[in-house]
């Protein structure tokens, strides 16, 4: 039903991660689902990952230490020219400042407010890869 092969969650909130896993599976996703609780680990993974595979990354903004925007900036050289990997910011409250900051980083392609919903994930999965 979809061409997306991999979903990566980057969030330090364990309960949200567990909940999002449930939702993503409930939405019918059967591909690879990876969870990182911090930016450093996620960046390490991206260094060696196959970036030609259709992937959606959900990156939480309010990470402790290096926040989501910092992670996005550091991921930029890795993800540039890799259209199969789409980076979406995950936030718990849609503040205008966050939207402005997101707009200033070109690699960020979207903005999703927590929690993910079954319908929301389905829509994302249905969109052309």
């Amino acid at each position, binding site marked *: 039903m979809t061409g997306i092969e991999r979903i990566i969650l980057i969030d*330090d*909130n*364990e*309960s949200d991660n*567990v*909940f999002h896993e449930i939702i993503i599976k409930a939405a019918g996703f059967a591909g690879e689902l990876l969870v990182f*609780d*911090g930016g450093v680990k996620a960046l390490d993974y991206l260094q060696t990952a196959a970036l030609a595979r259709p992937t959606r990354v959900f990156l939480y903004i*309010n990470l*402790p*230490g290096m926040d989501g925007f910092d992670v996005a900036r550091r991921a930029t050289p890795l993800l540039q020219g890799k259209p199969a990997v789409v980076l979406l910011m995950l936030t718990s409250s849609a503040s205008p400042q966050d939207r402005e900051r997101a707009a200033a980083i070109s690699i960020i392609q979207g903005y999703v407010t927590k929690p993910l919903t079954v319908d929301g994930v389905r829509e994302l999965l249905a969109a052309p890869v």
Partner: protein
Amino acid sequence: MISAPLPANEAARLAALTNLGLLDTLPQGTFDDITALASTICGTPIALISLVDAERQWFKSRAGLDAPQTARDVAFCAHAILEPEQVMVVEDATLDARFHDNPLVSQAPEIRFYAGAPIVTRDGFALGTVCVMDREARTLSAAQIDGLRSLSRLVVSLIEHDKRQREEALLASEEMRQRNAFLVAVTTASLDMNAFIDHQHIYRYANHAYLDFFGLAREAVEGKPVAQVLGKEFFEDTVKPRLDAALAGESGHFEGGLAHGTDYPVHVDVTYLPARDAAGVIIGAVVRLHNVQKLKERELLLRSSLTELEHKTLEQQRFIHIVSHDLREPVNTIINFSTHLAEHYAQALPPEARRYLDFVQGGGTRMKQLLDDLVAYVQLEKDMADLRPVDLNATMNLVSADLADVMARTGGSVDWDGMPRVHGDGTLLRVLLQNLVANGIKFVAPEIVPQVTLAALAGDGFIEIQVRDNGIGVPEEQREKIFDMFQRLHLRKQYEGTGLGLSICRRIAEMHGGRISVTAAAGGGSCFSVFLPDSPRQLEKT
């Protein structure tokens, strides 16, 4: 007759004479006294003070002669001034080649005898003479000649004294003229509105600003009664009592709206001050009028802002109340029932459901903690620090007791020694130190026994309280950031926290007029420094 030749310095001499301003002046008693004296000393019927002008000799004083002047070519004195050092004596004019056919000799007044002592200025100009004449030939004794010479010197002193006096008077009047010009310039340029009112309540003077304010021409104000200019009713009710007070020696004051000359009332501040002359007698009243409309408007604006602020503060307090009570209730419901479920129904749940229940419990507990911290932080915004001397040793005893449970659990310790007395709010400082010590105990690597040490240093104008730990430290690039609200550096499962503790610490330091910062402690760990002013100071109300 031989007319006298002109002296060598004639032009300069004439200039000096003219410059004295003595020619053709009215008789003066002092000069007349001198001619009377000359006449008495020499025993002659005629004595003159003669000034030799270009074409004439003019008599400043004359005794025994009616003519006010004679032509210069017949003047004896024109000869006398040729020898400034000498008293010229002509004992018998009929025997003198220069004078025997002089009309003054051959006709009335038939002069026979002449003696003239030149009047010589300090600059050496012979202006004329003090001279005596007789209708009979005669001689003068040496003493009489000396007397005449003394009188001529006296005339020089008098003339020069007169000149000085005239110059001083001129200077004084010039100074007055200038002073007046300055005063006019200053009052014209002044933005203050000023007027002078006399005892009859009539405007005697109004400056530009005053006239402009009322939109009136000078002639519509000066010389006019105040009642006519400002209106009878306003004058009687408002102006007159204050004006009369000023005219009686007390200053009067009035502040309020003034509608005259403007479409809407303008708020003014008017002072009536008694004006006195040099002798202290009240000669009128000075009116000083300030347009305080802008100030008044700002005052009103400020007052409404203040009301609004008070309203907002009240709203904030209500909000805090909602947060601390109404939100706590549902949170407590979540904690209570998830805990109850976990304790009594855990066996009935599949493993993943038990895990989800843990999340519910953890989330509820965190929310409760977050609410407590949030309320504590907002409460700080509301409170003023209540500053008084605080013994930090006593504060640390309380902090240590507060943290006894954590210490027991972790085996950690907190040490302090000889803490100073500071000027501060005891309750707030306790919160601050408790946060710092608790952080020091919390943020340690696994297997490390936490140790927190406090020390105090005296600086220039402040006291530095250092709180050192043997914990994991704060990376240099995060040292500013950690004091911001909700900044967390670590994963929740590693180190618990709401991210509010250090913002509370910073806020408390600022409420004391101080600040807080963090550096790396020697041998690892962090060193938090709280800087507090070492003397009481005015604090901003927030």
